[in-house]
C-alpha cells in the first residue's frame, strides 16, 4: 500500500474526499443552523424518473415480475380465521427483484451511480458494502467498463466468515471486482476513504441522491402494476428497512405514481442486544442487513452515513415500523420455497414475514406488497446461517417466537399463526432524531426560521409539536 495517513488524519479529510468522489458540494445545500434543502439536492442530480427508467432498462435493471403469493395468502387467511378474524387476510404480492442482473433490487441503486461515474469520466466506482449492493456495483461496473472496488466487513478475529458475506465476496469477484475483505470494526470506513483517495474512484455510496433516485422506479412500478392487476393502488407496501434508502426511494416512487394513500411500512429483524462493532457478536447474528442494528441508528440519525447529507430520510416516509425475529424470517423463507416455489432470500424475506402477520389484520380485498426478493445460494441461505448459528453455540429450535433471543436462541415458529410483528414507536424515534440533530444547540432561540420547516418535514410533526419536543430536550440537556 502507499504510505497512508493516520486514522484521525484521513477521517478529518472526509468532507474533501467525499466532495471529489461523489461530485456533490453538500455545503451548497445548507440552510439555517441545522437544515439543508433536501429536494433541491435530489433535483440537482438532473435525472427524471423517465430518464432513470431508461438508463436502468439499458442494463436490464427493473421491470421485475410482481408475483401474487396465493398460497401464503391462503395460510394468512386461515390463521386470521383461527384467531377469530374471519374475512381477514389481505392479498400478498411480492416484487421479484431477484430477477435483476445481480439478483437484488440493489441494481437499481447502483445503476445511476455507475452511469454518472461513466459520464463524468471517473476510472471506476467503489462501494463499502458487505451485501447485495457490492455485487450490484460490481455488475454495473462490468457493464460500463469501469473498475470496481468493494470493501467488505467479512470475518471475525478467528477468521470465521459470515457465510452470506462470503457468498457476496464470490459474487463480486465473479463480476471482476477487487474485494477488500476486512475484519470487524467501523474503521472499515477509514480504509474505504484511503481507497477512494488513492484511486480517484467514484463513491457509489448508498446514501447519495443517485442511490435513492434509482429506487424510485421500484415504487413507481409497484403502484402502477398493482393498479392494473387489482384495480387500485395497494393499501400498503412493506420494505425491509436498514439504512433507510429502501423505504425512502420506494415511498418517493409511490408518491410520484400518485399512490399517496398507500401506507409505507418498514420492517427490520430484531437484533437488539447485539453490538454491530463487536468482534464477538459479529457471527452471532444470522442477518447482515435489514436489522435493527442499522435501522434504528439510521432512522434517528440519517446523516451518520458516509456522505455529509444522506438522501435516505426514512422518518419522512415511514407510516409504520415493525420488527420480526430471525426465526420468523427463516420460517417464511422456507414457506416461500415450499408452497410458492420461490427459493429466495433470506434477508429480503424480513418484510414478507411482517406482511404475513399484517395481512391478517387487513381485509381480503386489500393488497399488501412486499417490495423485494433477493437471490439465494450457498452461504446466502437459511441452511448456511443456521449451521453457523449452531456452530457458534446458538440454540436453534421450534417453539414460540416470543422466546427468540438475538445472539443466544433462534426460535422457528411451530405454527404460522405465531408469526407476529412488534411495532416500534415512531414517535419515540422522532424524539431521538430531534435529540441527535439539536445536540449542538444550547438555546432554542438559536434555531433559525428555515430549520423549523425542515424539522417538521423530517419528522412529519407540526412545527408546534417540534417546538414543544425541542424545548423539553434542550431543557434536559442543560
Amino acid at each position, binding site marked *: 500500500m502507499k504510505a497512508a495517513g493516520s486514522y484521525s488524519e484521513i477521517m478529518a479529510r472526509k468532507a474533501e474526499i467525499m466532495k471529489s468522489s461523489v461530485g456533490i458540494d453538500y455545503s451548497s445545500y445548507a440552510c439555517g443552523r441545522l437544515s439543508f434543502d433536501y429536494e433541491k439536492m435530489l433535483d440537482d442530480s438532473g435525472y427524471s424518473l423517465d430518464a432513470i427508467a431508461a438508463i436502468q432498462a439499458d442494463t436490464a435493471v427493473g421491470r421485475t415480475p410482481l408475483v401474487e403469493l396465493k398460497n401464503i395468502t391462503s395460510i394468512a387467511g386461515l390463521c386470521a380465521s383461527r384467531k377469530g378474524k374471519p374475512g381477514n387476510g389481505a392479498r400478498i404480492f411480492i416484487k421479484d427483484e431477484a430477477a435483476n442482473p445481480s439478483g437484488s433490487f440493489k441494481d437499481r441503486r447502483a445503476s445511476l451511480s455507475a452511469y454518472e461515474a461513466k459520464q463524468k469520466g471517473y476510472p471506476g466506482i467503489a462501494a463499502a458494502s458487505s451485501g447485495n449492493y457490492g455485487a450490484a456495483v460490481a455488475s454495473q461496473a462490468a457493464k460500463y467498463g469501469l473498475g470496481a472496488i468493494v470493501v467488505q466487513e467479512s470475518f471475525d478475529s478467528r477468521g470465521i466468515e459470515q457465510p452470506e458475506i*462470503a457468498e457476496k465476496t464470490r459474487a463480486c469477484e465473479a463480476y471482476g471486482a477487487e474485494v477488500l475483505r476486512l475484519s470487524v*470494526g467501523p*474503521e472499515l470506513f477509514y480504509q474505504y476513504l484511503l481507497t477512494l483517495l488513492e484511486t480517484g474512484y467514484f463513491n457509489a455510496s448508498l446514501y447519495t441522491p443517485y442511490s435513492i433516485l434509482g429506487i424510485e422506479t421500484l415504487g413507481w412500478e409497484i403502484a402502477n402494476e398493482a393498479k392494473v392487476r387489482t384495480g387500485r393502488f395497494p393499501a400498503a407496501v412493506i420494505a425491509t428497512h436498514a439504512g433507510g434508502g429502501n423505504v425512502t426511494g420506494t415511498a418517493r416512487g409511490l408518491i410520484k405514481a400518485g399512490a399517496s394513500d398507500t401506507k409505507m411500512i418498514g420492517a427490520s429483524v430484531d437484533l437488539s442486544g447485539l453490538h454491530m462493532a463487536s468482534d464477538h457478536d459479529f457471527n452471532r447474528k444470522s442477518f447482515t442487513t435489514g436489522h435493527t442494528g442499522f435501522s434504528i441508528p439510521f432512522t434517528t440519525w440519517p446523516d451518520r452515513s458516509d456522505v455529509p447529507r444522506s438522501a435516505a430520510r426514512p422518518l419522512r416516509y415511514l407510516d409504520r415500523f415493525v420488527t420480526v425475529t430471525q426465526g420468523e424470517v427463516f420460517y417464511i423463507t422456507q414457506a416461500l420455497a415450499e408452497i410458492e416455489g420461490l427459493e429466495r432470500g433470506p434477508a429480503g424475506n424480513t418484510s414478507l414475514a411482517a406482511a404475513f402477520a399484517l395481512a391478517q389484520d387487513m381485509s381480503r380485498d386489500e393488497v399488501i406488497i412486499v417490495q423485494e426478493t433477493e437471490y439465494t445460494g450457498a452461504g446466502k441461505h437459511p441452511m448456511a446461517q443456521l449451521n453457523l448459528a449452531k456452530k457458534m453455540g446458538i440454540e436453534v429450535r421450534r417453539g414460540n417466537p416470543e422466546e427468540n433471543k438475538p445472539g443466544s436462541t433462534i426460535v422457528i415458529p411451530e405454527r404460522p399463526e405465531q408469526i407476529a410483528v412488534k411495532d416500534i414507536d415512531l414517535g419515540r424515534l422522532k424524539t431521538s432524531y430531534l435529540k441527535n440533530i439539536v445536540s449542538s444547540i444550547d438555546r432554542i432561540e438559536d434555531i433559525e426560521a428555515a430549520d423549523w420547516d425542515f424539522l417538521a418535514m423530517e419528522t412529519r410533526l407540526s412545527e408546534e409539536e417540534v417546538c414543544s419536543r425541542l424545548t423539553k430536550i434542550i431543557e434536559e440537556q442543560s
Partner: protein
Amino acid sequence: MKTIPKGSLVEIGITVMNAGNRAPQVPADTQKVNMEMLVKGILTADSRQGEEAEISTPTGRLLKGRLIAENPPYTHNYGEPISELGAIGRELRAMLKEKEELR
C-alpha cells in the same frame, strides 16, 4: 515455506490497525484484536508464502502484504440440512389441503 510462482492467483493479508490502537468508539472486545484485511490478486514476482509479496489486483492496483495462500478456495456452503426447518413445508401443505376440503 514454499515459493509461489509469479502469475499465480494469491491472497495477501495486510494489518490495517493494531490491537490497542483502534478507533475510540470501538467496543472493548474489538479493541483487543487487530483489524486485518485480505485481498486477492496476481503475484507480480516469485514469492515465499508467509513473507511480504506484491500483487496486481483486478483493478490493476499494486498492493503489498503477507502472502497467505495460493488460489484460495471459496469454502462457504449450505452445510447439513436443518431439521428445524424440515417439517414446515409439510405442515403448510396440510393446512392448504384442510382449507380446500372446507370449501
